[in-house]
Structure formats: structure tokens, C-alpha cells
């Protein structure tokens, strides 16, 4: 019997249990003295039940389904091991070679044939094992099904006998629901912790090769030379990367995104007719969902050549076709919807009375915006900008496509710079062995990026929260 059928069966049993438990509880409902439903006009008797019948239904239904399903999911994970174990005890398995590699290859083939996903075996020895495999599989899946059904019935019987008028089914069910919610929220957190731990682990390995001070403050970045065997000194100074990241993500992009985002928010909240707003705001928000690789094409194919030609035309030396400016400008455009929607939120949450107060003083709309709304919304806007910066410096696709690879420490926006994310991609692609300093450097860079964006987000959320409180 397939695992899927068992799962369906357990769920079916759960539904039946739900229905019958609810019916049983409903019958108890008016059993306090008069068993008949209330008559017209008579004072409505208070329900004798502590919890609504449907809660009793949920209580029993969960008892039927949850333990059995948990068992099945564990069983699905341990069953392959048990099956193999049993096959190995078969006399046919005695003929298997001792070499673990061939051994597991033959076993794998036998399994594929037994499950019907392969027709013939390359290794004839596998054919002898097919039958034992099938038998073992059959044995354990039937066994699992029986245990699951037993669990479902015992759970159901136990829960069903507990249905009484004063039984607090609602409290129990709510506790289960709360546990479910808790687990859901823990999954995201636990995953993050796991990611950070692995980042940390790899970074520590990197720092056994390279001094953290050299990494954080060194100004020369040439991991290639380290890979070619020139040693790790002076090869992993990440300052040019940090500078490139800040130059593109926090300076050039923000010079574009802050004014434009703010102005579009002001237009949308203060001047746009409701009809115009109803159109423009969703369009802006859709822009935020454009895949960044599309912006990357635009930056690399359209903006970057134009920037270089422009720089050459006005005679700026060191102009490159992979300029900081091209990547920064396009990234800025990408961030506009983000800044705009944060600013929009904080401007609309400034109370109307503030705006009225200013208008009633004879201020014009633009004076009101400049002198009252923007100052009042500023903390929210600042928080939004910090979040935008943290997004920009973590952005990968645009800079991979449009920013260069040369780790220059330069103020010239037309020159090529490289960023943390670009370098991570560079370091991890290619056929390096996985524990060279060059590859491990990617993790150290990732860690720095993670810490910086985390701090930015914390500060930003704090600022926004402080500001929200001020108006509540």
C-alpha cells in the first residue's frame, strides 16, 4: 500500500471523527434537564456545553490525524534504512562485494528495479536482490500502515471518550493551533540561524588563512594572485569592495532614488487626484517586482555604453564601459518604488489635522508639504531610506552585469569599481577547490554583508517604530 493512500486514509478518518464528535457534542448541548431543542418563546436554556460542538470535532479529529501523520512522516524517513538492513540479511546479499562503493551501487540498482523506476540492471548481481527488496519494502510499508491506523484509532477512541459537556475542548484546540503557529514562525528563524551559523563557520575557516585586520582594512584585492600561489598576504584587502558597494548602492543609487522617490510620494499623496493615484500607485508597486536581471540588462546594454561615450566626450580619463555610474543609476531607479512607497506610508500617516492646521494658517499646499508634512514624516522616510540602502548594497544582479570586476579605490564615477556581491559571485563560480582561501573569502564577504544589512534593518525598523508611536 502506498504512503500516499495511507495519508489520504488517515485524513479521511480524521474528517469522519470530526463529524461524529461534533454530532455527539451537539447532542449533549441541551442535555442539562430538557433534552429537546428550545421552544419558541420559552427562555433560551443556556448551553450545557463548555465548548461549541465544532471544537469537540476538532479535538477528536486532531487526535486521529496528527499522531498518525507525525508517525508516517518519521516512518517515511527511516523506512529506506530499515529496508536495506533487512535486504542485507537476506542470503542473496551474502554474495555482495565488500567494497562499499560497488555495494551501494548494486543495492541502489536493485531498489530502482523493485520500485519499477528502472527496467534492467547493469550489474547482474542486482537482479538477485530485487525480490528480497520487494519483500522487505512490502513488509515495512504494510507495517507502517498498520501502526499508523492503530495510532489513529487509539487517538480517536481516547479523545472520543473524553467528550463531555464540561470538557474544555476549545482550550485544547486553541493550544494546538497556537503550537502550529509557533512552529511556523520558528521555521523562518531557525533557518536564518542555520544560515548565519554556516556563514560564520566558513568565515572562521577563511580567517585561519587570512588575518581579519588585513581583510577588513587592506586596500589591495587580488584573490587571483592568491589562487595562483603568490600567497595570501595583500590579496584579500576588501576595502575597495566595500567602497565600491557604498559608492554604487549607498551614494549614487540614493542620489537618484531619494529625491525621485520622495517627489513621487509627495505627488501621489498630495496632488494626485484619487483616480490618478488609483492607477499610479499600483504601477509603481509593480515596478518593485520587476526581476533585477531585467534592470541588469538595461544597465549593461543601454546605460553603461551611453555613460562611457558621455565621459569620453567630456574628456574624463579612466572612463570604463562598466562604470559605477551606470550600475548606480539603474539601481537607483530600481529602488525608487521602494523609497516612494515607504515615504508614501509615512506621509499619509501624518494626521490630517496637522495638514488642516497648516492650511488654516493660510499656508499653501507646497508650504504645508515642505514645512509640516515632510518634517513630521521625516523619521519614517529616513527609516525607509535605510531599508532601501540595505537592499541596494545586497543587490547582486545589476552590479554583476553592469559594474566591473576591477577592485579600484576611486572617486571617479565613470571608472569601473567592483562590489561585495559581484566578488562573491566571482569567487564562487569557476572550478576552484572548495576550501581554498579564495573560495572561503566569499563567505567572509557574505558575513560582512549580512552583518551590515542586519544592522541597517534594525536601526531602520527602530526609527520607523519610534515614529509610529509618536502618532498613536
Amino acid at each position, binding site marked *: 500500500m502506498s504512503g500516499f493512500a495511507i495519508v489520504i486514509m488517515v485524513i479521511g478518518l480524521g474528517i469522519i471523527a470530526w463529524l461524529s464528535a461534533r454530532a455527539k457534542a451537539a447532542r449533549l448541548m441541551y442535555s442539562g434537564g430538557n433534552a429537546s431543542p428550545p421552544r419558541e418563546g420559552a427562555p433560551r436554556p443556556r448551553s450545557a456545553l463548555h465548548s461549541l460542538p465544532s471544537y469537540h470535532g476538532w479535538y477528536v479529529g486532531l487526535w486521529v490525524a496528527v499522531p498518525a501523520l507525525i508517525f508516517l512522516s518519521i516512518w517515511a524517513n527511516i523506512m529506506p534504512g530499515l529496508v536495506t538492513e533487512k535486504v542485507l540479511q537476506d542470503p542473496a546479499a551474502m554474495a555482495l562485494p565488500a567494497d562499499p562503493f560497488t555495494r551501494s551501487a548494486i543495492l541502489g540498482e536493485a531498489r530502482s528495479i523493485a520500485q519499477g523506476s528502472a527496467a534492467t540492471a547493469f550489474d547482474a548481481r542486482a537482479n538477485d536482490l530485487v525480490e528480497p527488496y520487494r519483500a522487505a519494502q512490502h513488509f515495512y510499508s504494510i507495517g507502517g500502515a498498520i501502526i499508523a491506523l492503530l495510532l489513529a484509532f487509539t487517538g480517536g477512541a481516547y479523545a472520543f471518550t473524553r467528550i463531555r459537556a464540561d470538557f474544555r475542548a476549545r482550550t485544547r484546540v486553541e493550544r494546538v493551533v497556537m503550537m502550529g503557529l509557533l512552529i511556523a514562525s520558528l521555521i523562518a528563524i531557525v533557518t536564518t540561524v542555520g544560515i548565519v551559523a554556516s556563514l560564520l563557520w566558513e568565515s572562521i575557516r577563511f580567517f585561519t588563512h587570512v588575518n581579519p585586520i588585513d581583510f577588513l582594512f587592506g586596500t589591495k584585492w587580488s584573490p587571483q594572485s592568491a589562487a595562483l600561489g603568490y600567497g595570501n598576504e595583500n590579496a584579500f584587502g576588501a576595502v575597495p569592495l566595500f567602497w565600491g558597494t557604498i559608492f554604487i548602492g549607498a551614494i549614487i543609487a540614493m542620489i537618484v532614488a531619494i529625491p525621485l522617490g520622495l517627489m513621487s510620494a509627495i505627488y501621489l499623496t498630495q496632488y494626485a487626484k*484619487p483616480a490618478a493615484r488609483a492607477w499610479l500607485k499600483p504601477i509603481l508597486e509593480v515596478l518593485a517586482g520587476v526581476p533585477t536581471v531585467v534592470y541588469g540588462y538595461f544597465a549593461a546594454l543601454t546605460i553603461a555604453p551611453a555613460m562611457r561615450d558621455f565621459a569620453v566626450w567630456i574628456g574624463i580619463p579612466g572612463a570604463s564601459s562598466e562604470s559605477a555610474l551606470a550600475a548606480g543609476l539603474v539601481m537607483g531607479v530600481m529602488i525608487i518604488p521602494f523609497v516612494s512607497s515607504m515615504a508614501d506610508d509615512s506621509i499619509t500617516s501624518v*494626521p490630517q*489635522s*496637522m*495638514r*488642516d*492646521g*497648516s*492650511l*488654516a*494658517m*493660510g*499656508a*499653501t499646499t507646497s*508650504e504645508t508639504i515642505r*514645512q*509640516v508634512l515632510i*518634517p*513630521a514624516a521625516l523619521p519614517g522616510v529616513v527609516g525607509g531610506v535605510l531599508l532601501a540602502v540595505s537592499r541596494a548594497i545586497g543587490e547582486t544582479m545589476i552590479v554583476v552585469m553592469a559594474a566591473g570586476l576591477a577592485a579600484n579605490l576611486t572617486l571617479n564615477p565613470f571608472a569601473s569599481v567592483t562590489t561585495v556581491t559581484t566578488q562573491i559571485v566571482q569567487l564562487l563560480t569557476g572550478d576552484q577547490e572548495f576550501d581554498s582561501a579564495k573560495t572561503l573569502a566569499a563567505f567572509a564577504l557574505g558575513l560582512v554583508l549580512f552583518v551590515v544589512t542586519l544592522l541597517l534593518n534594525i536601526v531602520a525598523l527602530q526609527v520607523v517604530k519610534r515614529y509610529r508611536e*509618536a502618532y498613536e
Partner: protein
Amino acid sequence: MTETSSSALPKMTARDVNVFYGEKQAIKNVSIDVDNDHVTAFIGPSGCGKSTFLRTLNRMNDTVASARVEGEITLDGENIYNPSMDVVQLRARVGMVFQKPNPFPKSIYDNIVYGPRIHGLAGSKADLDIIVESSLRRAGLWEEVKDRLKDSGTALSGGQQQRLCIGRAIAVEPEVILMDEPCSALDPIATAKIEELIHELRGRYAIVIVTHNMQQAARVSQRTAFFHLGTLVEYGVTSEIFTNPREDRTKDYITGRYG
């Protein structure tokens, strides 16, 4: 403009004013004169249009997209709904204080100089200082805040905030001050202070006050207008309205049999 304060001429007049919010009519055919040296109270049950009518007097209804005003409203004989009337000028002359104190999230000082700066009433820092002191004195707040003018206006108590808002309105030397339930968010002591303030401001500015509190209307006003369902039911000398109303609806409302 104090030379025009001969009490024969009303400061503001309204003739056959109708106000609509979209299709819905909120004010029907209201005609009223507001005297220069009296406090005029608007009373009436909730939703009868007091705020709506008050806001037509400084064109604050312009800020509500769905609102439409018909009829004629004059300030010193000039129709304020004329295209030639500058709303900025109008609102400098007709100030407003709201139900909920709404100081700007700026310093006390900056709250007061907000209007004078916008209207270019002061040339220098010294002028502004003078305006701040005199406005706060007239608003009865000077003694309480003179040592902390740099503190945020929102850090004051509710009553102080409301007096700050009155001071802010006074700072541009308006001719009329409109107050929409200025005490409804305040406790009795703060309310008494504001009422005292209204007494002191009377004569200097034409004052119109909306209130739900009959005693307050009786205490602070000399003229009372009773609104009901968007119409002006009765308008006259306060003492007469309260002791001897001509209309039954007024009487019912004042004696508490209604609303």
C-alpha cells in the same frame, strides 16, 4: 483694519449658503451675520452641519474634494468665494482653531512664528521674538512656557496645546477667529482657561465658536445660532435664546429634550 470696526456693519455675512458633499446636502439656505465685537456661538445636535458651515467661513471646505459651496459669504463686504479672493490672504484674516489641539511637531517658538513667516509679517528675528511673546501672552500661555520656547509643542499638556494653537492663530493678527469645539478634548480647568481667554480676545477679534456645551455657549457668547438638520433654526442674542427661544425645536434642544 480696526477702523472698520463700527458695530453697524457685520464682519462676515452669509446669504443663502448651501453646502453639498457630493450629492448630499449638509447645509440648506443658511443666512447669518457675524458681528465684529461679539462672540457668536453655533449650537445644535451632532451632524447638523455646524463644522461644515464654520469651515465655509475660511474656505477650509476647499480642502475636501467632494465639498461644494453655493451662495454668498462676505468678509468686510467682499465675497470670499470670488475668484479674485486669495485663499492664503483670506485664511490669514480668518483664523481657525480645531477640536483636537494640533500643534505642529516643532518647537513652541516655531509653532507661533509659522504663520508670520509664511505671510512675511516679520522682517527680523527681533520682530519674531516680539510676535512670539505677545501672541503667547494673549493666549495666556507665556508665563508657563517662556523658559522653554525651544521645547516641542507636542510635549505640552492638552490644554496648553490648545492655547498654543490659539496663540498660533493670533500670531498672524487675524480679524476673525473660528473655533470648532475648542474645549471638547480638555478637562474643566483647561476649559475654564480657554473660556477666560475667549473673554479677553472678544472685541479685538470677531469670534465664532462651535460648542456642544450649552453652559459654555451661555457663558462665552453674546449671539447664538441654533442649527438643526443643516438649517439655521434660530439666531439671536444669547440670553434670549436661552431664556426665551422663539422656536420649539430650539427650546427642546436647550432644555435637553432633544439630542
